[in-house]
């Protein structure tokens, strides 16, 4: 069944006729060609597909595009400024070596940005718990946690 879906992605209104069974991540990657959002596990475990829906981190492989009808979606492509200046969380990942292969990074950063916005002074322990839904096969997490602690401070300072 083909259905029409409309939403805002990174500030721009988009709409398309899609099959009702289209996942949000498929819509983002294959219809909009925004391939920064990754598919790691496709089973709701790894968080590589994390995007924001109305400001909240969600796993885009675990929902239909239709569930995002009318929503504001933010993907990793929408974080940096138009002139290329990195978002403070992205800059912190770069500075603190929060990535190796980079596959998990878009999801890590999107979850971290949402988390930091709600918990400006989070402890290292709280950051580790907030990463329950994001898996990384390279870094051993330590530098990711350091990056998020630093990125949270930078985000709070930039306000």
């Amino acid at each position, binding site marked *: *069944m083909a259905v029409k879906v409309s939403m805002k992605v990174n500030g721009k209104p988009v709409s398309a006729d899609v099959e*009702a069974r289209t996942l949000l991540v498929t819509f983002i990657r294959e219809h909009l060609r925004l391939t920064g959002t990754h598919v790691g596990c496709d089973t709701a475990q790894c968080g590589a597909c994390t995007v924001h829906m109305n400001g909240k981190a969600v*796993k885009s492989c*675990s929902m239909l595009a239709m569930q995002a009808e009318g929503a504001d979606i933010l993907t990793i492509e929408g974080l940096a400024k138009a002139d290329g200046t990195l978002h403070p969380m992205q800059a912190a990942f770069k500075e603190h070596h929060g990535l190796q292969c980079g596959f998990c990074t878009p999801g890590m950063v999107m979850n971290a940005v949402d988390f930091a916005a709600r918990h400006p002074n989070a402890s290292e322990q709280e950051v580790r718990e907030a990463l329950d*839904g994001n898996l990384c096969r390279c870094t051993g997490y330590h530098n990711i946690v350091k990056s998020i602690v630093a990125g949270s401070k930078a985000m709070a300072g930039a306000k």
Partner: protein
Amino acid sequence: MHAFNYHRPSNVNDAAALAAKSADSKLLAGGQSLVQAMKLRLAAPTDIVDLGMVKDLAGIKSDGKTVTIGAMTRHAEVTGSAEVKKAIPALAVLAGMIGDRQVRNMGTLGGSLANSDPAADYPAAVLGLGATITTTKGTHAADKFFKGLYETALRPGEIITSVSFPIPKRAGYMKFKNQASRFAIVGVFVADMGNGVRVAVTGAGPCVLRLAEMEKALGAKFAPESVAGLKVKSDGLNSDLHASAEYRAHLITVMAKRAVEAAMK
């Protein structure tokens, strides 16, 4: 995923009518269980009735005696709710232990109860507090709602609209979680209702269950030592690659003791 017809009703009557139309239709709430099941083709509904735009299904109200939570209320809203934290802190804690942040931003109370996963958290609070489940066809007492493995008293097309939780004198929830999935290997909800104690266990059996012996012991004296010595029989408990039935039986006592400690804090 198999193809399906998609419906997006805006009120609960239309949703119920759409759900009743086809025998193989499914309601869609957060999708955190259903979308994955459809991807694996464990579920292949002909019709999806999306509750996402249905008015008045989400929200939290408290009247001093009960806390009523709409079926479409996300786990993140329950764990963050000042009203829930004040009236039934154990319920806010429980909602915050479900899955991960992303899952909590989408998953709903109604979806969790309708799914009745043997290792889900909410059923422990619903049974532990003796909550009332309101649907489009009437109400269900918690004691008669959970029927077995992924089985509830809901009839086809019946939609959960809200759940009313009586406010206990004190309550606590403890779960020993599976480190990979975060689901409960064993979770115990203990509630001192003022006129009696209820103990509900999730993760251990085909669905959530009560423990009469512990309820009696805690009714006589609400203290960790009342349950610390009680051995639970492993007959009929789940045994899988995560834990044997004997280990789960042991964990029930340990989690019950810790839940009582949490309730007394």
